[in-house]
């Protein structure tokens, strides 16, 4: 009866209690930061003595914040496009191919996801110092692409595995060329996987800190690097304002995902 909610007796209350506490534990810090960003206290006193938009004003008037956000956005968009395109091509190869070492190759493609990022960051830093890519947009894009590609390949191969290739074959017999069949039939059918690939790739790049810390130069830094270097100095409420905007972005992204998922289902 342990898997029947209504027949758990008093255990049900314990489970609900733990779940409520955990949910609060996960949610409260996020709400807390959002509240503090409107608080007037420089020392982040809670509850705030008064409310203000000062930190947002400081944030938006500082060109370094806006520049770093714009840099992050550009990098994330390029990474997303490349990661999805490369992920599509690679996943088709992995899904349809019948070659030796296919499983080993698949595992290799996923390793950047499971290895500690700090190792990749240090290794790429050393390598980019030698070939002059450090502190460049290209350097950022390449390193974030290495980190994002596994998510893309994973999402798209999963979608392809759930897609019956006979449907593509049917399109080919209907007269569509193999490429046309992939574009007009397979791609729409695996669009949920392509969409997750895009979301994961964007988030991977947009939120990436570790590699970026090593890769950044005084003239080119991403938003996480800016947050990081600010935090290393002091806990200014401007970071709370920036964090709140990032949380808002997450909420918007979640709403977008929910809408698209619903749209794809119907």
């Amino acid at each position, binding site marked *: 009866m342990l898997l029947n909610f209504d027949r758990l007796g008093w255990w049900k209350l314990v489970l609900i209690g733990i779940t409520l506490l955990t949910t609060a534990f996960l949610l409260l810090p996020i709400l807390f930061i959002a509240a503090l960003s409107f608080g007037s206290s420089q020392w982040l006193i809670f509850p705030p003595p008064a409310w203000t938009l000062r930190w947002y004003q400081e944030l938006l008037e500082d060109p370094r914040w806006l520049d770093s956000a714009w840099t992050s956005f550009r990098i994330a968009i390029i990474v997303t496009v490349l990661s999805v395109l490369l992920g599509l091509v690679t996943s088709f190869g992995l899904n349809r191919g019948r070659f030796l070492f296919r499983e080993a190759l698949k595992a290799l493609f996923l390793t950047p996801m499971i290895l500690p990022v700090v190792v990749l960051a240090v290794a790429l830093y050393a390598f980019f110092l030698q070939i002059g890519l450090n502190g460049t947009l290209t350097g950022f894009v390449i390193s974030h692409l290495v980190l994002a590609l596994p998510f893309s390949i994973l999402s798209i191969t999963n979608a392809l595995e759930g897609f019956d290739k*006979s449907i593509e074959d*049917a*399109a080919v017999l*209907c007269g*569509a060329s193999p490429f046309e*069949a992939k574009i007009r039939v397979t791609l729409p059918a695996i669009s949920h996987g392509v969409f997750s690939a895009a979301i994961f790739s964007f988030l991977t790049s947009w939120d990436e800190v570790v590699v970026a810390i090593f890769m950044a130069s005084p003239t080119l830094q991403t938003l996480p690097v800016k947050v990081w270097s600010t935090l290393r100095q002091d806990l200014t409420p401007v970071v709370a304002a920036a964090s709140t905007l990032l949380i808002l972005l997450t909420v918007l992204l979640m709403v977008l995902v929910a809408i698209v998922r619903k749209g794809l289902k119907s």
Partner: protein
Amino acid sequence: MNRSFLQIRGIRKEYGPVTAVQDVTLDVAQGEFLTFLGPSGSGKSTTLYILAGFENPTRGDILLNGETLLATPSHKRNIGMVFQRYTLFPHLSVGENIAFPLKVRRLPKVEIDAKVSAMLKLVRLEGFEDRKPAQMSGGQQQRVALARALAYDPPVLLMDEPLSALDKKLREEIQHEIRRIHQQTEVTILYVTHDQEEALRLSDRIAVFSKGVIDQIGTGPELYANPATRFVAEFIGDSDFLPCDVVSTVNGRAEIAVCDSMTVSNIPLHGTASSGSKAALMLRPERLLLSKTKSDIGLPVTVSDITFLGNNVHVATKTRKGNVLSVRLPFGHEAISGLNRGDAVWLRFDAGSAHVFGQ
């Protein structure tokens, strides 16, 4: 009939050391309904996939109206196909699915619309054009798949076990639909199935596949009345086999001795056998006559079980040597009344319904 419409010439397909199809040669007439019948792994689907262009043969050629098909990639072969699994494009409506091959061919919209409604009418799904595949039953989906495959008037339609995912009742219903549509469109159909009843119900001719080769091609009655191999005899209709000794052979006919107790002559012989060799005697359960009175020309057996099967009654019997023979009799047949397990009875058969298969 023009038998040289579609010619399969010595098609062979090897996957490494495994030979899936061994030198299949076959002529199909225009408008014919030909079924590839055989168990899974017999090469029937592979042959169909070579026709569709999804597989390249190791050897051999396929000619349509005298010209090779193999040089043409799948999407330019203009062949229709209905698959075993549901292959409607999930993101397109029923109407868009049927329109897909026509849009790919860049036909004018008016023509496409007219064809889509004609096709929906053909498969009796008028009013369904805006439905999504997920909102339809399996049987309806396969009918749409049929409409889509016929929308561009292909000279040949391939069907790869299209009804195997459906339950029995629905299967029979759609078999009737397919028959009707075949008669209406006069398209040439190559149909793959492992279900002999389906093959018999639908086909003009049946090619029985076994282990990569065609054992026999013919109409249903031909295969039933005159099976070329033991495999065909087992696959088409029900059959019993008894070991026998060949006494003599003349002109493809044999005289044999069964169970030491009786000899029968003038039985069609298939395969090689010479006097003195062992062979198998094939009998049809529905052609055996059962008699409760001892007779010298009957095979003495004991009744081991009696099963009521609706319009038929199935009597299982055992010979003195322990071989099992089934007899099928219509319900209410006088030979069954009062019959009990353990009774001694005598079986007779006419030479015309029996066959001997050599080694």
